[in-house]
């Protein structure tokens, strides 16, 4: 009789099945641990902070330099990132029409002045009447004014920097057509000191007060976990009194408005150890704790 081996065999197979199933079941639990992100996020170190997203801009606010009239671009002396003084030429429009017009106006003025000058000695001789002399003199002054106007127009074709600063953006090249009142072809700004315009969601606006300290984390400034603190201390400048539609996140003109934001201006010194560029985004934490100074 081989009953015993059968018993044993069945028991062994069954036991094997249970063990294998238990082993499989032990791998079933699925709760992967939460691991920190590959790069260090902007971490809050205390309570009572108000978060905002900000855009770095020059203190004087960037000047969007426009053209006085539409025309072809002849020359662009402005070079991006180069320092300019007030009065330095940034952009020259095509003057091929204006220059002969100015020359003609000067010639006309000279001719009228010449007529008036030659009439002057004849005054009182009866050769010219008083009224004819006056007319010639007025004509000469009018022609001179026209010449000045033409010269001014010629001068206006050269767009000059209104401030001492740096050329931040040039978006035209010689030969292109620029329209007056269109997108600013040249942007200049004083970037020796930077400020940051923070957008606070209107729903959190009531928590904002004058003079609160803040700190900012530049976007794109990557830090592996454990890297030293990369936050920049910010000084309060002012709260913009007018709540505006949010635009700062991408800066794209087609960005759709879905909320309004309170804008707050903060200032900071350029850090010595790393560059900061105008137009960079920043994650800002504003400290609303009562004892914050």
């Amino acid at each position, binding site marked *: 009789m081989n009953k015993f081996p059968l018993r044993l065999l069945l028991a062994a197979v069954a036991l094997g099945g249970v063990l294998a199933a238990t082993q499989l079941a032990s791998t079933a639990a699925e709760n992967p641990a939460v691991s920190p992100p590959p790069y260090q996020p902007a971490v809050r170190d205390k309570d009572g902070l108000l978060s905002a997203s900000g855009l770095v801009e020059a203190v004087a606010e960037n000047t969007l330099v426009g053209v006085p009239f539409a025309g072809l671009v002849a020359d662009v002396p402005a070079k991006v990132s180069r320092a300019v003084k007030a009065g330095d030429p940034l952009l020259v429009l095509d003057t091929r029409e204006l220059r002969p017009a100015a020359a003609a106006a000067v010639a006309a003025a000279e001719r009228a002045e010449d007529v008036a000058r030659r009439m002057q000695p004849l005054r009182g001789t009866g050769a010219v009447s008083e009224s004819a002399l006056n007319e010639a003199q007025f004509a000469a002054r009018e022609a001179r004014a026209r010449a000045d106007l033409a010269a001014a127009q010629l001068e206006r074709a050269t767009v000059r920097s209104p401030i001492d600063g740096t050329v931040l953006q040039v978006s035209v090249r010689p030969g292109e057509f620029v329209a007056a009142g269109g997108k600013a072809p040249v942007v200049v700004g004083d970037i020796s000191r930077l400020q940051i315009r923070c957008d606070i969601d209107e729903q959190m606006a009531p928590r904002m007060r004058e003079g609160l300290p803040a700190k900012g984390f530049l976007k794109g400034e990557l830090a592996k976990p454990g890297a030293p603190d990369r936050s920049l201390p910010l000084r309060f400048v002012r709260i913009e009194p007018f709540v505006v539609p949010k635009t700062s996140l991408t800066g794209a003109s087609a960005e759709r408005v879905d909320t309004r*934001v309170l804008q707050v201006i903060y200032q900071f010194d350029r850090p010595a150890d790393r560059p900061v560029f105008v137009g960079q985004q920043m994650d800002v934490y504003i400290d609303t704790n009562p004892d914050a100074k």
Partner: protein
Amino acid sequence: MYRLALNMLFGDRAKLAMLLVGLSFSALLMAQQSSVFFGIMSWTYTPMVNIRASVWVSDREVEQVNDAKPMRDTDVTRVRSVDGVSWAAPLHSSIMQARLPNGNFKLISLVGIDSDTFAGAPAVLTVGRIEDLRLPNTVLIDEWGANLLGRAVTRPDGTVETVPLGVGDTFELNDTEARIVGVCRVKRAFTGGPFVYTTYDRAKAYTAGVRRTLSYVLVEPRPGVTPAELCDRIEAETGLRAWTSETDLWTWGERSLARSTFWWFWRNTGIPFSFGTAVLLGLFVGIAISGQTFYSFVLENLRYFAAIKAMGAGSGLLARMLLLQALAAGLLGFGLGVGMAQAIGRVMIEKGMPPFVLYPQVLVATLVLVLGISLCSALIGMVKVARVDPASVFRA
């Protein structure tokens, strides 16, 4: 005496085989069907497993993770302003059509992770580096998706082979190029499409025309704040909905988004009904076969039981003998059944289809049910044995 009981059980091989087939088939059906059920249900909250963060913030109306209701971009800063938050990052999630180089279209799940910190990035990259996502028009694709979207290549000998997409291959999302710079290993999703990871900002570009692109905010609490506490604070201050992210079916908390997703699918699909029916079927088949077999086994051996009774054994001893027999058959049936179930499961896991998750709890429940079935059968036998007249052994 107990040894005698086991000898009786193992002596009749035909009956034993019948009994074991019934019990093991029942165990197999219950364990295997429940595992496929839990496997499919575990697919429903796949994003919670792939994207790890302690707290997920969503729109008020969200019920399950696959159906995100878009929020405004500034909601990230609102969440960041809540006390107890350490950091918060935006996450985009949407289903899109990808246009493949061969002109075919496939649905994909686009995941946009925070551009700066890559919070939410897949844990395992088999090819490539996560940093390459900073290059223009780049995406990561999951291994399974790389195969699914692979292109058919005809070999010189005429055989057609599907070559999976790899680094450098491109496809189009919304007429914009998506260049693959890495392949990641993530869990497959219930919604079917492969996962395509890109940065949040680029996801906005890919979904051009969609007004709101923020699906979730991933949040980490500060030390000393539990995720559940943080959820309360976020909900109170922002009016959004905050969820915890545990994905383990047996330990997840009240506020887990995976839990909510699980029950949403439980309520809104036929999955639990279909698999519940199969499990019940297993139970009934087990009860029917093993009950009937055990009863006829007892009936056939009634003479021996009567003899044992005539030798002076009480009904209690007989009952215990029957119980031992039932227990032995039950344990053997259970072992054989779950052995087969796990073998099938391992093949399924190897193939990845259909999903199979064998929980220890399912094993225990199967054991209890199989023992229950065999004890039920023993009970029927016991009634018969208790009634047997010891004198009948002499009459035969």
